[in-house]
């Protein structure tokens, strides 16, 4: 859909509504890559994904193909997945291990794990022409690379705020809340990546993560089915059903419950969904977790950690983190109408196995390729993209709900109700800043 004027993108974002072109226009998508994905900090992976020297995983920053790997000294590197010789993609699988060096399958150029050229066959062909230490002959590293509590980020821009400054208090909470729940203060990735493609714009997914109106509608069938099965299970076995059933039944909590949650919009677009979850259940697994944390941190700190009530942190533009259940989804935009999600979960080091089982149950019921929950979400995303791609029938997306009612203080917006469309407005206001419009 061609716009009249690509130099006036600011006119596409009004305070309570956004033009459909922001989701459907390929030229705008290219500008988003340029101004957001290639400028800000993008999550690459977790240190524990590459535990051994020579380990590597491949992923995306925008459309750039990247590698995260570990060298023999234990250092982690983020490289562009490209041979400086003829441009060949060096790592052609999702993950693996190389004994000492990367070796290009085309002409056997070898690179150390930090990207430096290690060896070239028949070196004499280059003597007197170009030095093999010349930067143009090394695998290029990401312009900047920083890690927060084991979570590795890269920026393809040499300038900009530090990771710490960019994450800010709001987004750092995502990683703190995961790691603090471990008696050792560390989490460890479970080596499984579920990958799902959405036939829709990346922003549609982000908006959905903080959309508190849709669950009881979109997930009506799943919530009902789970609630019914809970009764059947109890009837037949006389026991309480597995906790996973409740994760699903919760999707049909009434509007009032969702309304009581808070959404908080932070600078740079990071948005948090928080809420009062009530007392911690006093089951044996929770008690055992409390004991492990008390032993490590003392009772006051344990209480503060477990009272942290952050359901969801959206680390703009590309990460959805659910700390209480150790879930993480990385969002990789591939086109205006196509997005890849890489879905992970973590173990908490030193926590009781029962806590991991909860994380695994959520990973299965909500995040696996057989999820009954995301089946209906993915349908909505695709349907939105289809509607937004139409030429006629309307030009705008409405974000009117509770507009003008959300308090702002020191650059942080909180929602007046859990169902306010404040998160969407906050993300687009950051979008405008990133896009310099």
């Amino acid at each position, binding site marked *: 859909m061609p716009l009249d004027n690509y130099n006036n993108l600011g006119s596409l974002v009004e305070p309570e509504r956004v033009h459909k072109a922001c989701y459907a226009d390929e030229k705008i998508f290219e500008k988003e890559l340029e101004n957001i994905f290639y400028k800000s900090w993008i999550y690459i992976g977790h240190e524990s994904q590459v535990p051994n020297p020579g380990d590597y995983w491949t992923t995306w920053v925008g459309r750039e193909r990247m590698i995260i790997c570990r060298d023999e000294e234990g250092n982690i590197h983020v490289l562009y997945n490209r041979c400086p010789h003829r441009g060949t993609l060096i790592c052609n699988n999702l993950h693996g291990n190389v004994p000492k060096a990367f070796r290009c399958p085309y002409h056997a150029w070898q690179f150390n794990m930090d990207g430096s050229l290690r060896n070239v066959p028949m070196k004499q062909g280059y003597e007197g022409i170009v030095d093999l230490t010349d930067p143009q002959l090394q695998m290029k590293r990401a312009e900047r690379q920083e890690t927060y509590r084991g979570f590795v980020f890269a920026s393809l821009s040499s300038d900009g705020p530090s990771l710490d400054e960019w994450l800010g208090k709001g987004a750092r909470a995502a990683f703190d809340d995961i790691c603090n729940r471990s008696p050792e203060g560390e989490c460890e990735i479970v080596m499984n990546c*579920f990958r799902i493609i959405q036939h829709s714009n990346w922003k549609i997914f982000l908006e959905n993560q903080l959309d508190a109106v849709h669950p009881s509608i979109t997930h009506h069938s799943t919530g009902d089915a789970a609630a019914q099965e809970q009764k059947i299970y109890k009837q037949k076995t006389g026991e309480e059903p597995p906790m996973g059933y409740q994760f699903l039944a919760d999707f049909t909590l009434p509007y009032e419950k969702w309304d009581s949650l808070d959404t908080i919009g932070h600078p740079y677009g990071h948005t948090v969904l928080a809420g009062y979850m009530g007392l911690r259940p006093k089951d044996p697994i929770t008690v055992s977790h409390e004991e492990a944390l008390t032993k490590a941190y003392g009772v006051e700190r344990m209480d503060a950690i477990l009272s942290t009530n952050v359901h969801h942190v959206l680390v703009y533009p590309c990460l959805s983190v659910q700390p209480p259940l150790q879930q993480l989804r990385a969002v990789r935009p591939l086109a205006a109408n196509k997005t890849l999600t890489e879905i992970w979960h973590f173990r908490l080091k030193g926590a009781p196995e029962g806590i991991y*089982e909860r994380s695994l149950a959520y990973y299965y019921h909500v995040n696996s*390729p057989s999820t009954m929950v995301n089946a209906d979400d993915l349908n909505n995303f695709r349907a939105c993209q289809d509607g937004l791609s139409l030429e006629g029938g309307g030009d705008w997306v409405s974000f009117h709900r509770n507009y003008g009612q959300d308090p702002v203080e020191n650059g942080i917006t909180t929602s007046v109700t859990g169902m306010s469309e404040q998160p969407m407005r906050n993300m687009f206001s950051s979008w405008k800043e990133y896009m310099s419009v």
Partner: protein
Amino acid sequence: MSNRTGPVTSADTQREVEQLLYHQAEVLDERRWEEWLDLFTEDGVYWMPASADQKTGEGQPNIFYEDHYLMDMRIRRVEHPYAHSQAAGHRTSHVVSNVMIKSENHASHELVVTSRFHMVEYRLDDLRHFGGKYTHTLIKSDDAYKIKLQRVDLANVEGPFDFVMQVWL
């Protein structure tokens, strides 16, 4: 007639097992859910591992790992009037072949059977397809074989998947 690569089983058993697998494919394609459930033992499990080298489904990620209760839940969801992503319709067609009885335990009446499947799924004006290997552990119950464990190894187990799988493959 005997399998060249497996134990010597009777032609009758071979045929019985094949018919069971074809019947399973038919009830799946025709969405005859009660009959689907009935093919499994009470403690029967449908398991699609998340990786080809998994030895067990316990305590680790899986694509599907469902007992009777979870299978029943899935049926309730897929037939729910507000299962929105089912509204546009969803039709499948399976072919099951290469049925080989890998082991037969005459004492416990347990059989391990491998087969290959290929299926198409029609949804939203589009066809997508899946294929892979089934490994069934069958156990004789009264006069019929029932499924104690069905393991499904997808050819494209690593994905990426566009959309998800709403019912078993």
